[in-house]
């Protein structure tokens, strides 16, 4: 069960209060009528399924009822950051690669979550290993 930091409530809460709501940062085309059938179909149905860094939208359903975003490693289930709707992730698949190359990888095969949003200070602490 995940332990999730709600960026609106500013607190860690149990996963039971939350509900996943699919991939984050999928924007509805501003002028749907001018979009091709195929592009509209992609917007409706096609989603990424990466192994590794993924950005997901969640809702604090039994809390503040706010939607927000999570950057999560789908392999380790580690939540690297949470951020408000309308904000951009500070950790992406690309930046994680950079981190690996720069050698801040931790002994557990993951990497330190340096650069996560300030509200995630606990995610920023050094891993003991």
């Amino acid at each position, binding site marked *: 069960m995940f332990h999730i930091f709600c960026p609106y409530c500013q607190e860690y809460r149990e996963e039971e209060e939350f*509900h996943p*709501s699919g991939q984050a940062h999928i924007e509805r085309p501003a*002028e749907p009528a001018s979009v091709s059938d195929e592009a509209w179909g992609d917007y409706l149905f096609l989603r990424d399924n990466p192994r590794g860094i993924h950005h997901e939208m969640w809702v604090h359903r039994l809390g503040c009822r706010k939607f927000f975003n999570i950057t999560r490693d789908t392999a380790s289930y580690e939540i690297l950051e949470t951020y408000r709707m309308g904000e951009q992730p500070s950790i992406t698949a690309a930046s994680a690669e950079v981190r690996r190359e720069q050698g801040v990888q931790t002994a557990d095969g993951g990497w330190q979550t340096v650069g996560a949003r300030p509200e995630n200070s606990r995610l920023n602490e050094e891993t003991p290993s």
Partner: protein
Amino acid sequence: MTQSNRLNQGGRIDRSRRLSFTFNGQQYMGFAGDTLASALLANGVDIVNRSFKYSRPRGITAAGPEEPNAIVQLGASEAAQVPNVRATQQALYDGLVARGTNGWPNVQRDVMSWVGKLGGGFMPPGFYYKTFMAPASMWMTYEKFIRKGAGLGRAPTEADPDIYDHFNQHCDVLVIGAGPAGLAAALSAARAGARVILCDEQEEMGGSLLDSREAIDGAPASAWAEQVVSELAGLANVTLLPRTTANGYHDHNFVTLHERRTEHLADTAAGAGREGEVRARLHRVRAGRVVLASGSHERPLVYANNDVPGNLVAGAISVYIRRYGVVPGQRLVLSTNNDHAYRAALDWQEAGREVVAVVDSRAKPDGDLVKQARDAGIRVITGSAVMEATGSQRVSGAKVVAIDTERFVVTGKVETLECDTIASSGGYSPVVHLASHTGKRPQWRDDLLGFVPGEFKGMHVAGGAHGVYALGEALADGAGVGAEAARAAGFKEAAAIAVPDVAVRHESPISALYQVPHEKPPLRAPKQFVDLQNDVTAAAVELATREGFESIEHVKRYTALGFGTDQGKLGNINGMAIAARCLNRSIPEVGTTVFRPNYTPVSFGAIVGRHCRELFDPERYTALHQWHVENGAEFEDVGQWKRPWYFPQKRRAGGQERLETMHEAVARECLAVRRGVGILDASTLGKIDIQGPDAREFLGRVYTNKWAKLAPGRVRYGLMCKDDGMLMDDGTTSCLAENHFLMTTTTGGAAGVLEWLELWHQTEWPELQVYFNSVTDHWATMTVTGPDARKLMSEVTDIDLDREQFKFMDWKEGKVAGVPARVFRISFTGELAFEINVQANYAMHVWKALFAHGEKYDLTPYGTETMHVLRAEKGLIIAGQDTDGSVTPEDLGMHWAVGYDKPFSWIGQRALTRPDTAREDRKQLVGLKPKDPKVVLEEGAQIVLDPEQKIPMTMMGHVTSSYYSPVLESGFALAVLKGGRNRMGETVYLPMSDGSVHQAEVVSTVFIDPKGERQNV
């Protein structure tokens, strides 16, 4: 029966408290402090079970959770039955009743032994694999056989009388295991001020300290354990959980602990004199840091007939002697590849029994324990191993031979030693189970000959769990790791406790030995068991590799290795080593072993906690619920709501009084609405209060139809689609004021629709100023409907009910029965209808006032079933019943409710012009009239055009709603049918599973009052 194997002194048992217990129908005596296993061994019970596949006699092998054989069914009464209990982990209590799970009908004289012989051939290696490949019908046959003989235990057939609980816990440091490393870690963390939970699965905390030969600070190791436990118990920041198994290690340091509160006292809480108390608790712990101090399990060696009773893991011998004062035999042969196991021989000899020999696979062992054994006059045979045990019901001897472990051959002459007990040790496997729950693969360490936990964020490992075995080192490791964990949890000043004094022991290194070579080739030697619980032999593993299974994961599935309730705690590494030898690879190349929750079986009671019976799912009641109960309503579950389904009344016939059938009640309720006046409690409809200057714009975007011109005081029906154009929900929305609307949703859709509105507002259109709030429970809703509705309403309200003043699809504010109310002229029955909304607290008063005035109109309460019939007669859909997520508004014939020319591209609009949603032959909503009026079609029945067509027939659609109409005096249905609107008047066919075929005519969805005049009077 006497306790023939009980020593006169020693052990941590209370000899002043004698306990009587029954095993397999026989009565025995034991002492307080015994486990069921130690008491059985004390009584000289050799055979506790029959094996799964070969029906071979089996005895107790180990002393902890790794025990594969002594699996019992516990409980004196039917209701108290608990399956799959390990006798080694069950504390003895007075009156305990247990039975070998797999002993049926009698473990001593097994009349089913022919089945064993049959079973051997019947269930060859690959049995599961091949069986699952076979037709499913064969599995049913196998399954009965397997269940009976498989040691799977059985569930009780009566309700469990006990209660269980869940605790949500938070701590800075959770320490799992209270052996030397765990106790030291807990003390370091606790002294630093961290909130510590220390859990241990045993009856007593201390782990290996309780059976250790070593001294700490010059005193017995167990004394140090007692002293630390007592200090921890006195600290306010420490929670000690004995008899508590950490069973699952989940994401983000969430650990589930299974605490047994009364199971060591009796088979029910009441039986323990603790009626009403919780039998077991599941602690759901969110730990800042986890210290895994779970220790190790000793591996037995794999040799021929190593399953005959009297074959034990070496360490278990020491546990039984030192903790329970039980020596499980007279003459011991120990077979080992390491020093530590020698303590079994020393303990045995000191208990006054004969050690025939220690057989050591190493050429020149010279550690301190080895020397001690030699000094004590024990014969040590080096470079050799026990190749085979003799005896059938009990070990009678050990065949010992010199071996070459590199070439896997015997190199000398076989010597047979007479003995009744063979202890073996092939080294130690760190208990990596919990760590591997997290998904991190264990890592092989060649120096340890074992897997250690993979590293995991938030987890620290201490002591034997990562191969730090020597007592002094384990204490130091635990002390340091406990401090490290506390620092990581924010207690920056945390320091390791001073490590107590332990003499350093010289040990000669372990040498790899898993399977002992036999003088016969592996496939022809007597059975060498790898997994005792599942009867998997070394030959089976070898066969699997010959059949081409190269990954241990495949070998496991082929042989069922590790698939028992013990998850192969003893056998998995040996199985991997054998596979590696056969494949000529290293163990880590063959794979790693992955364990999954739970570590040991957890009772369903503990998993469920209080979430059972009436607390399984919350029940929601309307403000009028009590009236419904008092008036005999039958209830229907709609989501979590209890809604009146129908109100059966008493009928008199021939002097007999009886209740109406549902059919009779519904017919009466329907006719009352169509001819007089009825009333429905519609409070469960979802209600969402929507406010803000952009509320109207927002409605226009989430509904398919137009909202720009809806004036205050007016109501409109709306359809809500997802962006794929499929109907999601429907309902009416009323304009309360220019910037204020009240939306209604289906009963089941209320929460989902609110979240849907929030989703679009928060993620796509945050610039719109609009706010949503659920008011479902704030308002009670009563629908008064029927030709007499106005007459009744006029008696209770000050609202002008004139049809010109209060039009269809208007709403008005006023008083009903003296209570402030909103009244809506909307209709879900097709009749004149008033929906009264009042504050829920006033609902009962208003409802009763309506009945007081309604008596002269024969006001009839009706339930959901009548509501369904009435709405279906009018062709009004229920979202979720007549639609299924693949139905568009156009499919429903609701073109009139779709505003294609609205300026903003509302949710679903774009998708409705995709080629697939624009197809002519989509399934469309139609009415069906059965040719035989007595027929009520089955909901879900498939529609075909040609009933003579061969199977598979071309399916054209299906029935979505079907009822009997008392007004039409006929069955009728709504259905979705391909190209349905162009098939009016055609005959379609509905083949039923019994072979009969119904005929129906395709008709309009509106069966009554097609012009809608009745609701508009």
